[in-house]
């Protein structure tokens, strides 16, 4: 009468394992805070899981990855709205320089000085990234870092694939320009 669905849990567990790092990274690069990125990541997966377990809403999933990023992006927008309402002067918080200790790195075998250098570089790139157009930010993260397909990005941005290809090119130019203007040297 009440069939349980253990398969869905397994399926969700797999989706979580495959995407949690990317979603956290996307959130971290956008908000620049470890705690807030963790909060957004957990909320994203919770929301997606609630939709995922419902057969009706699950049918709407063209790509689970695209759905995850879409949810995370909405939560990031909400985050900025709340921050803006609390402190108008802090609107540009995303573009602030991230403290090194706030960056969690994947490779734990690195020496401390190597970790510090890498964290510094990451903070610089993130700062440059945060200063360009938001669509460009997203495209660089999705296309170059997380390797989403052009089709998935087109779905996320609600734009034709041809436009996405143009945006990819423009986003790289914008980031290059920002890195050069901001004296970001590796």
């Amino acid at each position, binding site marked *: *009468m*009440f069939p*349980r669905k253990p398969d869905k*849990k397994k399926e*969700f*567990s797999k989706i*979580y*394992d495959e995407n*949690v*790092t990317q979603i*956290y*990274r996307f959130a*971290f*690069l956008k908000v620049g805070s470890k705690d807030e*990125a*963790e909060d957004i*990541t*957990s909320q994203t*997966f*919770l929301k997606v*899981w*609630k939709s995922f*377990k419902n057969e009706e809403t699950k049918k709407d999933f063209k790509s689970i990855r695209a759905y995850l990023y879409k949810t995370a992006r909405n939560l990031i927008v909400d985050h900025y709205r709340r921050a803006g309402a609390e402190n108008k002067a802090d609107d540009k918080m995303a573009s602030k320089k991230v403290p090194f200790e706030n*960056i*969690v*790195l*994947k*490779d734990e075998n690195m020496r401390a000085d190597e970790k510090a250098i*890498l964290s510094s*570089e*990451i903070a610089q*790139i*993130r700062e440059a990234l945060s200063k360009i157009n938001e669509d460009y930010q997203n495209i*660089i*993260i999705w296309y*170059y*870092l997380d390797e989403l397909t052009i089709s998935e990005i087109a779905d996320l941005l609600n734009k034709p694939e041809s436009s996405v290809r143009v945006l990819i090119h423009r986003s*790289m130019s914008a*980031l*290059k320009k920002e*890195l050069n203007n901001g004296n970001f040297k*590796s």
Partner: protein
Amino acid sequence: MEKELLEKIYKLRKVSPADDFVSDTKQSILSQEETVEKESVFFSPAFQHGLVMAGAFAFLVVFVQMALPLVPQYEHYVAHHPREFVEEEGEKEEEANRVAEHEGGERMEVAEKEEPVQKEFAALEEGLREIQRQVFGTKISSETGEERVSYSDKEIAEYLVAEMEGEDTQVSTMTMGVQEETEDEDEDKVERAKKALEREEYGKVFDIYLE
């Protein structure tokens, strides 16, 4: 420059969530899901419908269990109290008789055991009254000239009292063998008969008349 830029971008891939966060979040979401699933089971329309049906079935079972013992009691009542039952149920008398007969004639046997004496008395009483009516009715009829077949006890009693008072009646010789008494005795009888008449004890008036 393009390659250098890409290398910088790829360095961002080193950003990773903490391991404890990854495992704790996963566990948290799954445990929340279990709670939601349990709630959804308890509050689902299917579960609530099932609950209502189970409740109705339980009520039916309890009702039947309570009502079943009453059936033999009812049948027992019908079998052992046919008269009361008939009085209460009126038009169901035939049905009661049928039930009683079905019980092996028990009802009829019991009724026959209880009723003979009463029936005998009732028959005697009725017979006596009928004689009274016929005898004294005829007397009254011949006296008054009316042609009624029978008269009420009261009319008979009044007639008897009047006769005992020595009024001018022509039926003194027709008093079924009652002999004439002395005047004192008659006066005493008349007084007692009058009192009995006042108290509407018409049978007693008749008894006094027969003394």
